[in-house]
């Protein structure tokens, strides 16, 4: 098993309260095999430098003073990203150390990893958040750069082979995955393949836009258009829009990535409830 005592950390956020139970420290690890067009942490690509390099001891030191705040509220450490499993050796070293300290451990993952390589890490978690962004394999590839087969397979295996509670998270984006039909598809899959998993809807936000500007990167809006033009050009299925033949009419900008309103959220929750799926929220 690979263990690395140092790695690249985008950010180490103490007093994090939305990534699991209680007061937590979230370790955002750099690097991600996905390239989501709405990514709110674009800096994950640029953090592989000396300024973001941290040793295990440094991470421990940063967390040590906060550990006493974990005790009374069931808090602990959350590994996030980027994609935490992308730095497998470092993640393993941290997981083992903090497991030994008795911390509550949570993993946030995009689900894109070699299951057998990280099984030992997953087993030490108290809870795993896994993203399912799009049930359609082709669209998934267009939105994130990779297909969803491995992700859905990993979700299924987690359910079958681990005893760790799982929360499936969907970043709810109107124009990408918030439509009733898609939520239906997702819920059907969960009922069949991950019946014990809970579901959390994470409404899309644009808080990441400033980061793009700071990093001198192209703003997300521009990229959406590019991606959608690609969709139209290839004649693929566009959520909520039916099938677009090549050369079809221009997609209106308001159909692009939109923040879901309360009605959309309510509808999604209702669909999940109809399938007997527990909807949770860590907001």
């Amino acid at each position, binding site marked *: 098993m690979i263990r690395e005592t140092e790695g690249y950390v985008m950010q180490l956020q103490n007093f994090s309260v939305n990534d699991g139970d209680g007061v937590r420290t979230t370790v955002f690890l750099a690097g991600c095999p996905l390239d989501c067009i709405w990514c709110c942490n674009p800096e994950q690509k640029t953090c592989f430098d000396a300024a973001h390099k941290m040793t295990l001891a440094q991470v421990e030191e940063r967390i040590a003073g906060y550990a006493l705040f974990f*005790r009374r509220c069931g808090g602990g450490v959350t590994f996030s990203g980027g994609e935490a499993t992308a730095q497998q050796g470092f993640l393993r070293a941290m997981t083992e150390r903090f*497991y030994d300290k008795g911390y509550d451990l949570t993993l946030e993952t995009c689900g894109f990893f070699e299951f057998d390589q990280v099984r030992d890490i997953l087993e030490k978690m108290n809870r795993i958040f896994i993203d399912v962004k799009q049930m359609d394999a082709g669209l998934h590839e267009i939105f994130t750069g990779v297909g969803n087969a491995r992700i859905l397979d990993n979700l299924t295996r987690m359910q079958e082979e681990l005893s760790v509670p799982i929360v499936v998270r969907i970043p709810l984006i109107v124009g990408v995955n918030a439509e009733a039909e898609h939520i239906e598809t997702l819920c059907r899959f969960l009922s069949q393949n991950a019946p014990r998993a809970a579901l959390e809807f994470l409404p899309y936000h644009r808080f990441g836009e400033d980061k793009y500007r700071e990093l001198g990167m192209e703003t997300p809006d521009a990229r959406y258009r590019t991606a959608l033009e690609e969709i139209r050009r290839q004649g693929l299925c566009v959520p909520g829009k039916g099938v677009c033949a090549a050369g079809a009419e221009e997609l209106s900008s308001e159909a692009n990535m939109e923040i879901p309103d309360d009605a959309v959220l309510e509808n999604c929750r209702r669909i999940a409830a109809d399938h007997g799926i527990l909807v949770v929220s860590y907001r």
Partner: protein
Amino acid sequence: MVTERIERIRQNYVNSKPRISTERAKLWTDSYRRTEGKSACIRSAQAFYDCCAGIGVHIFEGELIVGAIGEFRKCGILTPEFSWKWVEKEMDTFSDRAQDPYIMTKDQCEFVRKEIFPYWKGKSLEEAFLARLPEETAKIGVDTGILDNDSKWRQAVGEITPDYQDVLFPKGFGGIIKEAKEKKAALSMADAEGQKKAEFYDSVILTSKGIILYARRYSEEALRLAEEETDSVRRRELLKIADICSRIPENPPETFYEAMQFLWFTQIGGILSENPLSLNPGRFDQYMNPFYEKDIVAGALTPDFAQELVDALWLKYSEWVWTISANTADYFAGYNQFQNLTVGGKRRDGSDGTNAVTFMALKATKEVKTHQPGLSVRIHQDCPEECMEAVTDLVSTGCGFPAIHNDSVGYQMLLNAGYEPDDARDWNNCGCVVPHYRKTGEWTAAVNMNFGSAVEYALNEGKSLMNGALMGLPEKPAKEFSCYEEVEEAFFRQFRNLCYHSVVLTTTAQRLHQETVPRPFLSSTMEACMENGTDLSMGGAKYNVGPVITGIGLAVAANSLAAVKKLVFDDRVCTMETLADALSADWEGYEELRARAQAAPKYGNDEAYADDIAVRIANTFYHEIHGYRDIFGKPFTTAFMGISNYIPMGRVLGATPCGRKSGEPSSEGVSPYVGSDTKTPLAAMRSAAKLNQEVHSGGTLLNLRLNQELVSTKRGRANLGALIQNFFSLGAFHVQFNTLSSKTLRQAQERPQDYRDLLVRVAGYSTQFVNLSRNLQDAIIARTEHGEF
């Protein structure tokens, strides 16, 4: 891993029986023969000086830290000025007794009978105490197991923490002599006060000169041995020892090694002067770390050699034994000297005090496995994780060390006892679990009081079930109690009477100590004594804290009252008369009733029924005891300590309503009765935390047994750490764990030769399991082993 040298010394320590040396007693007695007519403090100081000048000098094989109290490596001494009658009575069977046997030869016995004891006839503290004690107090307070303070009239007080930080290390005994001379020069000899103080300063000059002379004699011996030594490495070591002992303890230590040797010479001075229990090294890591850091930075010391010195000191602390009567040995079983050494915790300025020496101390106990020093650790809520890890790691070895204390409750206990905040924050442990401070004169284990006796007398017309004698206050027959409240009132009447006699026992002994056994050597380690020209026994310390009365059998008393309430008045399954008959019959013929009594609510399960009674008893104990004043006008203090006193105190107690049979052990500290904390350790902890522990400034003790599996992984130990912190957040002061399985302990009973170094927690301290009587071994195995948190 320990060095080969340490392992050799360790093997000798675990495999050899202690022997009694008569040398000190002989020198002391001869000195007293020469000083008749002089004041008590001068006689004592002169005897100390003569002892330092005449006692044999012994540097044992491989020793790095030197200084012996007699000719044997594992050695105990006699202090006939305190008591000798019990020695005369018991010494022929010292080698054979069940608890803490010593080797004393026939020749030695004959020698002390002829040469030493006759001089002390009518002069010892013991005889004076017994002559003065009021008869009605003596009836329940002398070798009865009802009230017990024999360690305060057969032995010295001890129970003190020399001030290394502000007195010994900065001044050295040379500086103390200088100060004493200056102070004396400023006195007028025309008034009584001046005369008394001059005598005090003279006594301090004598004892200081004595310990300096003692060290010089070791310097000479080391030099002599070095000349004979053929091994060049050992030769260099001996020359180093000779060099250190030529300067220390006259001068302040300058290196880590010198400071370590200084510590041991101070300990030697304490032992030769009074054979004390609880002569505490105090906050070892706080005063040693500056030396350590300085030497490491200067390249004058390696961490490995520093560790070897710590290991060597641990063995020195363990090789001398406290010579005590069979009765006292029942209460303080396991050759225990109660030299409490405290590490960790906050500094005077409130910052965390964990340092490199903290970890060296924990490591030494883990690796050398000595029963001394009594290693205590202070844990505050922001204790560094690596410190907690080292603590729980040591717990997981099963040795029962360290005693784990709540930093903030210790602070609160001292504030309640009248300390200034900065001093209170600087507390160390004394003996087993007493929060203490180095500038203090206090009797921290003044009397053990048997709570079970109050139950017995309340339900048996004031009489003992064991012998039928009227030991308590007369009481009406049990059958005439018409409601539970009446029973509780009767209990508290008897209880208050026991408190009263405990105070009588203590103040009688306190007065006698002032008259007959002053403490010049130990007084010289206290700046206020030096400032005021007043001996410790006269109240010379900066803080004089009221004597501690220790309650034994809180759980037995609470469970018994709960059982009476439940069986007789709530469920009405029997009458008071039937219950009283069952107790008189030791439950014979009342097996069904006994089963019901055992099933009645028990303290330690986080249930109000019995816990509320325990809280009422503890609160009453505090208020009652705190209302009395000692000879310095200080309020008496309460404690729920352990020691092994719950065994002898159970032995004199008839059957109790909780279902306990006659003669069985009572309960210790604030721990539940053995086997009755049937829920989880969390419930036991919650029950214990209800007791307003911070008012019992003499300390509180909770003993728990955990299944070794629970702490066999790092994560398990981390959980234990969190458990301790959460317990402490409820306001509890102390907890200690035994993590050895019953199977291991039974194997040790069967094959003691294979388990000679197996340490176990008794109560407030650890000692070798094989050195405990069968009785006490069984009592430890009987404690509930918790298999899950």
